[in-house]
């Protein structure tokens, strides 16, 4: 087992995990701070071993549409980028959601808006969970807080994407992408054979057989009555996901009088803040949403009966805080603390913010 413990960056872990979970294709375009995903794949050359294709597309838009094409044939495909690049992908993501195609998008966030900065940020929360592209759709959104989770969530995201025929996104940031930590990579899973894909994805466009109708992959429907039913179907699916796939982690919450809510790298920094605050005698806990959509609304609402107040700690100007406020529905005070434009707070700053804003 010990030989399987490796030290690597979060971005490298994504690449290794993609190959190991039996991925068929990666399509991307370099951008800091996620370029190591593509670089690592190019270095490993998985097309020589598992047969996985890796392609540097001419642009992010080309890459996401290659993902659409691959996913339409039932293949396990992913793309990765950072904030400005993910903005370019939004049209394709909306199409994937509309055509109900399973695929994985990885966003290693950096500061915006616009070209912004290459330093870490979490300012794409709204884009990820509230739309981003057009139309009423949802992405299954996983927020890793360690290099280990970068590796683990690739397989999990694909499982969920195929289970629900829905695109999934891993929302990481420059900290998690660039830091090195210990990681145990998932075991090798072979790529699925054509027969296995046909069995698992009877909807896939893999060539018409005589014994069935044509499979059509499209998000277009000009008859509004049919389109409304298609939307209703999507909404029912989203409801099922909300009921079954909420994931979160609690840290020192049992006796907490105050609660931090934070995801990704912010949750790691908050953990340290919890340790330091508890050493000062302040009973604070941390709730870390692992799925940003579906959001752990019920878990947070439960703490509204226990804690005096909550602080949403995010590397943005206050985005997830809105969902926390909806969850507690006015029962307790919920404030936000953030740093912007690529600046990352330290544990001490979070404790000071807690004292100033919610105590």
């Amino acid at each position, binding site marked *: 087992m010990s030989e399987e413990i490796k*030290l690597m960056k979060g971005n490298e872990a994504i690449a290794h995990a993609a190959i190991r979970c039996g991925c068929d294709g990666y399509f991307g375009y370099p951008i800091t*701070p996620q370029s190591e995903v593509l670089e690592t794949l190019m270095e490993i050359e998985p097309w020589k071993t598992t047969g996985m294709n890796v392609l540097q597309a001419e642009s992010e838009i080309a890459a996401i549409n290659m993902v659409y094409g691959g996913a339409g044939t039932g293949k396990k495909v992913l793309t990765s980028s950072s904030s400005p690049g993910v903005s370019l992908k939004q049209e394709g993501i909306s199409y994937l959601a509309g055509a109900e195609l399973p695929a994985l998008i990885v966003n290693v966030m950096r500061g915006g808006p616009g070209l912004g900065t290459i*330093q870490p940020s979490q300012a794409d929360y709204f884009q990820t969970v509230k739309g981003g592209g057009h139309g009423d759709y949802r992405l299954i959104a996983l927020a890793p807080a360690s290099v280990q989770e970068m590796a683990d969530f690739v397989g999990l995201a694909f499982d969920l994407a195929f289970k629900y025929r829905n695109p999934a996104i891993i929302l990481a940031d*420059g900290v998690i992408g*660039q*830091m090195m*930590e210990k990681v145990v990579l998932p075991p090798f899973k072979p790529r699925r054979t054509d027969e296995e894909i046909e069995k698992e994805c009877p909807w896939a466009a893999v060539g018409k057989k005589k014994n069935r109708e044509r499979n059509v992959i499209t998000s277009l429907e000009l008859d509004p009555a049919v389109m409304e039913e298609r939307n209703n179907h999507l909404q029912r699916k989203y409801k099922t996901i909300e009921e079954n796939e909420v994931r979160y982690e609690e840290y020192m919450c049992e006796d907490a009088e105050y609660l931090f809510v934070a995801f990704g790298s912010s949750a790691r*920094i908050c*953990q340290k803040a919890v340790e330091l605050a508890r050493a000062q005698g302040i009973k604070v806990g941390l709730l870390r949403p692992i799925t940003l959509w579906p959001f752990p609304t019920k878990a947070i609402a439960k703490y509204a009966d226990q804690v005096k107040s909550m602080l949403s700690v995010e590397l943005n100007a206050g985005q997830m805080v809105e969902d926390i406020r909806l969850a507690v529905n006015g029962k307790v005070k919920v404030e936000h603390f953030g740093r912007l434009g690529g600046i990352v707070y330290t*544990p001490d700053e979070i404790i000071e913010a807690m004292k100033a804003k919610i105590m």
Partner: protein
Amino acid sequence: MTEEIIIAGFGGQGVLSMGKILAYSGLMQGKEVSWMPAYGPEQRGGTANVTVILSDERISSPILNAYDTAIILNQQSLDKFEKTIKPGGTLIYDPYGITKEPTRTDISIYRIHAMDTAIEMNAIKSFNMIILGGLLKIRPIVEIDNVLKGLKKTLPERHHHLIPMNEEALRKGMEIIKK
């Protein structure tokens, strides 16, 4: 045991790779490790720094506001990080290029003439290993054997013939560091 370390200097001095070797050494020694670079356009000429944490327990934040040990390789970094060392902590610095000496009295301060020594040894690229040797003399957080194993892991195979030179630099660093 947890050791929270900041290594800071100019880009190109081997700051990030020194941190990487230290992190790998920790891995070889069965410790929890985290390596968090201030990545970005600073490389080559600008300032570069990396936070390395080695611990027997799970590591929470990879980003810190106070450090047990600071390794400082230029004046900007000394100005920035001297004040972030925990009381009772350790500062190790190379006086090469330092114009204002450190002033703290509540920490242990060590000097290591690594740049001059590296030039003398005609092994300028081993500069960071001299520093690392100095660190391990003062804070023996990982065993030399594990550092050499870590070095093997970080260096591409084609550079493995440089390992003896790096080992020599490590030992030299242990010799020349002083209060």
